[in-house]
């Protein structure tokens, strides 16, 4: 089979189970294509030779009852992997080799998948374009010099370029859904508490969630089923009954009510985004869903709230990088000087900016005006969703206010970069699940995504709606392999 890397996850799993393909053949195919795709800069750390050994071992003694039997997979470099360098895209963790494994990746290996490498991302997941990574920009396989989105930009790029059949990202304000939208792939941010945060490099702990990214909804559902688990090692992990998402997947969404929030029709939104949204509404109706206009009145306050809450938590989480226990150290004249130089040289500009914002809003005299205020507005934003969900089962919005932009286009203006996350951030603030599915192209031929937001713990419902709509949309990604010489 010459076109192994073009197969979906479920096709690969079936072919391995039916012994039409070996794990070694599949692993080799994705590694070969990754080798030819260095120009995309998707990998921070490759683990190819270990992966081939693991694939051989799997083939020698295959357990075909597993959900991901011998499937190769690269993951975002924010997940700690035992004995394999984990950098979070930062110079300060350039030489960090975890001695333990994140729960989410452990769940994946327990189902038979094989790690092939660690994927590029914005430094500490702070960014919307993968341009803040210490390891350089990532190219979007859709077009040269186009950003793949962020922060899970290496993940979205590698997935769309077929260097990995599925992958995982993390989403604090849109970092799975926005890159999925920019690359024509599917990305799910689960309910807060669904996937363990243990072993994931922390950014903003009340918002961070890991989630699956895949070529289609079915593969995404299967991966969500694997990674979601209750974990005692994460104090905010929630013990609820998790579905067998892929087995329970259905296109029958007749009678489901889907809300259209009028506040998401923002000023200056390109007409093609509005048109895409209208098309999405028609597709949902064709699937038998009932469309209801709703209001989420505090939508406009979500981004300012996020840019207090997330940096505040980040400034606290990133205090641990002091050049003492692990990571990079710069020499200093005394202890304080060592700390200050280590952090000044070890962190990039965006991370420093956010630590400064966070430190300021938490500092004496400003806490009530900023942090407490933001927590109160966060409550109002969550109340909006609670109110809306009395009337509807799910909410449909665009995933992003534009298609992917050029590398360098927004790097000098932090606020315009932050506006990218206008449709995704409210979902994190309210702790809800949201999925982005590819739904069309703009005039340049770049993919555009639609987002379906669910009630807490209702991943199955939004996966079902996405599954039904995916069939109607019948999206085809336009990838020309321009980077392969």
């Amino acid at each position, binding site marked *: 089979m010459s076109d192994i890397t073009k197969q979906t996850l479920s096709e690969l799993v079936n072919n391995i189970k039916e012994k039409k393909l070996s794990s070694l053949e599949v692993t080799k195919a994705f590694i070969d294509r990754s080798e030819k795709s260095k120009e995309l800069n998707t990998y921070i750390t490759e683990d190819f030779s270990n992966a081939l050994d693991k694939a051989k071992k799997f083939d020698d003694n295959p357990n075909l009852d597993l959900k991901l039997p011998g499937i190769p997979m690269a993951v975002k470099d924010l997940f700690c992997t035992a004995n394999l360098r984990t950098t979070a895209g930062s110079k300060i963790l350039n*030489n960090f*080799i975890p*001695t333990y494994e994140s729960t989410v990746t452990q769940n994946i290996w327990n189902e038979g998948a094989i790690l092939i490498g660690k994927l590029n991302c914005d430094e500490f997941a702070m960014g919307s374009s993968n341009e803040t990574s210490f390891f350089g920009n990532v190219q979007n396989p859709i077009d040269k010099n186009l950003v793949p989105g962020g922060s899970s930009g290496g993940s979205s790029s590698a997935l769309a370029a077929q260097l990995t059949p599925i992958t995982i990202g993390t989403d604090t304000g849109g970092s799975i859904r926005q890159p999925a939208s920019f690359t024509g792939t599917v990305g799910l941010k689960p309910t*807060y*508490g669904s996937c363990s945060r243990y072993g994931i490099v922390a950014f903003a702990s*009340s918002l961070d969630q890991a989630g699956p990214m895949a070529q289609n909804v079915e593969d995404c559902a299967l991966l969500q089923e694997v990674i979601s688990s209750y974990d*005692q090692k994460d*104090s*905010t992990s*929630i*013990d609820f009954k998790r579905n067998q998402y892929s087995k329970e997947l259905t296109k029958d969404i007749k009678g489901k009510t889907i809300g259209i929030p009028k506040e998401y029709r923002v000023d200056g939104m390109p007409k093609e985004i509005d048109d895409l949204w209208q098309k999405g509404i028609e597709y949902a109706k064709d699937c038998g869903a009932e469309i209801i206009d709703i209001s989420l009145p505090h939508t406009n*306050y979500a981004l*300012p*709230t996020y840019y*207090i809450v997330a940096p505040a938590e980040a*400034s606290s989480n990133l*205090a641990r990088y*002091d*050049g*003492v*226990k*692990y*990571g*990079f*150290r710069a020499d*200093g*004249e*005394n*202890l304080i*000087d*060592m*700390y*200050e*130089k280590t*952090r*000044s040289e070890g962190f990039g500009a965006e991370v*420093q*900016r956010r*630590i*400064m*914002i966070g*430190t*300021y809003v938490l*500092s004496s005299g400003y806490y009530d005006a900023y942090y*407490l*205020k*933001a*927590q*109160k*507005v*966060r*409550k*109002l934003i*969550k109340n909006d969703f609670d109110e809306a969900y009395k009337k509807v089962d799910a909410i449909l919005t665009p995933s992003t206010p534009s298609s992917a932009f050029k590398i360098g286009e927004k790097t000098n*203006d*932090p*606020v315009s970069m*932050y506006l990218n996350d206008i449709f995704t951030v409210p979902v994190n603030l309210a*702790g809800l699940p949201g999925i982005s599915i590819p739904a069309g192209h703009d005039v340049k031929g770049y993919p555009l995504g639609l987002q379906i937001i669910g009630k*807490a713990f209702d991943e199955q419902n939004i996966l079902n709606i996405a599954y039904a709509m995916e069939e109607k949309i019948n999206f085809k990604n336009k990838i020309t392999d321009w980077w392969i010489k």
Partner: protein
Amino acid sequence: MSIDLKTIKHISKLSRISVDEKKAEKLASDLNSIFDFIEKLNELKTENVEPLTSVAETTLKLRPDEVKSKNLREQIIKNSPKDNEDYFVVPKVIE
């Protein structure tokens, strides 16, 4: 609201991130545009709103107080930039 260079120096000290003049000026300008954007929250009256501290509306679970990970000394030291036997080494603090 305006964040001046003196404030930047103060935050940089609290953050343990050294900044030179050039970096301080850039940070002041960036932070001012970000805080202009954040000021929007002042449009809302929130006196009677309870702050949301966690979206996970569960009480923390209790567990038996048992040691589960043992003998991690080597693992903990493994990634340190500088160590000596079982200790992290830092610049001299006491004269």
